[in-house]
């Protein structure tokens, strides 16, 4: 028996739950086939979500899953350019012709799909992002110059959450694109995902008691994102997300974190998302998305 999981045609944070639902109980007992043939577009969140699924299956010692690559050449080329297939080939048995990536010149891919397993990887990510981030954030999105450094700080803190809390590796990707339907403006999106223990298990020993029966994936996200708590007793911990929220508020940005069966978002005025979604299909680890839109005063 093989369980076929369709990658949504338009694969982003909104359609992610249908992808997660395809897996059923985690880890699925059957061999898994991830079918991306019909996919027309995937956000960085979607791409690293696929890798996270592959990683979680590998760590659960399941049979190597299959991945059928998108049929559309343009889509395949873009995924290759984002570095997706380099990593997917390690986690999936790929079916379909995979183009060679040939990234030249400036690109909307600010940071290829990049594994994050240790602190050294965070140094590499921050170093890689510095030049392109300034070009996009200041040049295209109209943010002040110091925004580039805040952006790098946010990226650093988000990636460190994997190293410090997940108990396993994860992935990061950063891309600029136009949010036509939701916003009608250019945005930069940071996506960070891991296949680790998730917020609930990470915070359980230190904070579950305080929440009593309410404790679960949603309450754990609330504790981390709204109350800025950490599993560590060190009083200096938990400031990373607080800082990210502060500067996103200034730029009308959005952060959403999905972990286990819940997703919590700080929703800016331009978005119609709900702050808390609970009882979602389970997905391993944690997935973070940060969206920074072009500033309206520039008339973009």
């Amino acid at each position, binding site marked *: 028996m093989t369980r076929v999981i369709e990658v949504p045609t338009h694969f982003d944070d909104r359609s992610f739950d249908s992808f997660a639902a395809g897996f059923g109980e985690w880890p699925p007992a059957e061999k898994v086939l991830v079918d991306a043939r019909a996919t027309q577009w995937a956000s960085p969140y979607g791409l690293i979500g696929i890798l996270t699924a592959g990683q979680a299956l590998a760590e659960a010692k399941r049979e190597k899953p299959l991945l059928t690559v998108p049929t559309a050449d343009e889509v395949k080329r873009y995924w290759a350019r984002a570095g997706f297939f380099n990593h997917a080939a390690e986690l999936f048995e790929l079916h379909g012709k995979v183009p060679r990536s040939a990234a030249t010149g400036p690109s909307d891919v600010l940071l290829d799909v990049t594994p994050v397993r240790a*602190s*050294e990887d*965070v*140094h590499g990510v*921050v*170093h890689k992002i*510095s030049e392109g981030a300034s070009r996009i954030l200041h040049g295209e999105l109209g943010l002040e110059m*110091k925004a580039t*450094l*805040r952006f*790098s*700080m946010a990226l*650093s*803190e988000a990636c*460190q959450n994997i*190293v*410090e809390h997940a108990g396993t590796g994860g992935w990061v990707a950063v891309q600029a694109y136009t949010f036509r339907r939701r916003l009608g403006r250019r945005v930069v999106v940071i996506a960070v995902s891991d296949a680790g223990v998730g917020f609930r298990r990470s915070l359980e020993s230190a904070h579950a008691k305080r929440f009593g029966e309410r404790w679960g994936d949603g309450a754990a996200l609330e504790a981390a994102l709204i109350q800025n708590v950490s599993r560590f007793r060190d*009083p*200096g911990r938990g*400031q*990373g997300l607080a*800082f990210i929220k502060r500067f996103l508020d200034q730029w009308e940005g959005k952060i959403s974190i999905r972990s286990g069966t819940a997703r919590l978002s700080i929703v800016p005025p331009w978005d119609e998302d709900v702050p808390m979604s609970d009882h979602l299909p389970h997905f391993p680890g944690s997935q973070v998305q940060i969206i920074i839109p072009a500033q309206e005063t520039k008339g973009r």
Partner: protein
Amino acid sequence: MIQTIRIGLLLREAVASPYRDLVTRPTGAAVRTRIEATLADSKCLTALLDFSDIELVDLSCADEVVAKLLLTVRTAYFVVLQGLREDHHEAIDHVLTHHRLAVAAVPPGSHSPRLLGWVRADAREAFACISETGPLDVSGLSHGLGWSLCRSRDALGDLTLNRLVRPVGELYYPLQTA
């Protein structure tokens, strides 16, 4: 006597790579350990931490390097930061405020320090007054700011507790920055 410590140099030793970004907790902890070792071998009372070779300081490193150093060396040294850019200020100010700590930072091209982090408003004003006019005693500060002796004493007490002035006899000296 001042011990100048180049953070960029310690960073390169700590991560054994050419990166100039002070990011991640393990990196911050490694840099702090090196600062503490340098200070332990020094007879200087003031440590001038020079950030001028540093590109980015994230929250985790600001916490590990600056906040934890202040918590550790609180009774032994005076710590002054220099070579900070505006975005460095933001990260350091954020973590110090969280801990209710403060540190003096010398802006580029200046010898007059500013405070980052949290102190009471009176202490901040007293710090600025002493930095500008030089050493003062309680009555001198009272006279300079039009405060009562009690208010001046409290403000100087706050600054002393946070190692932001050097008390010598009855006088409170600004921190050495050069």
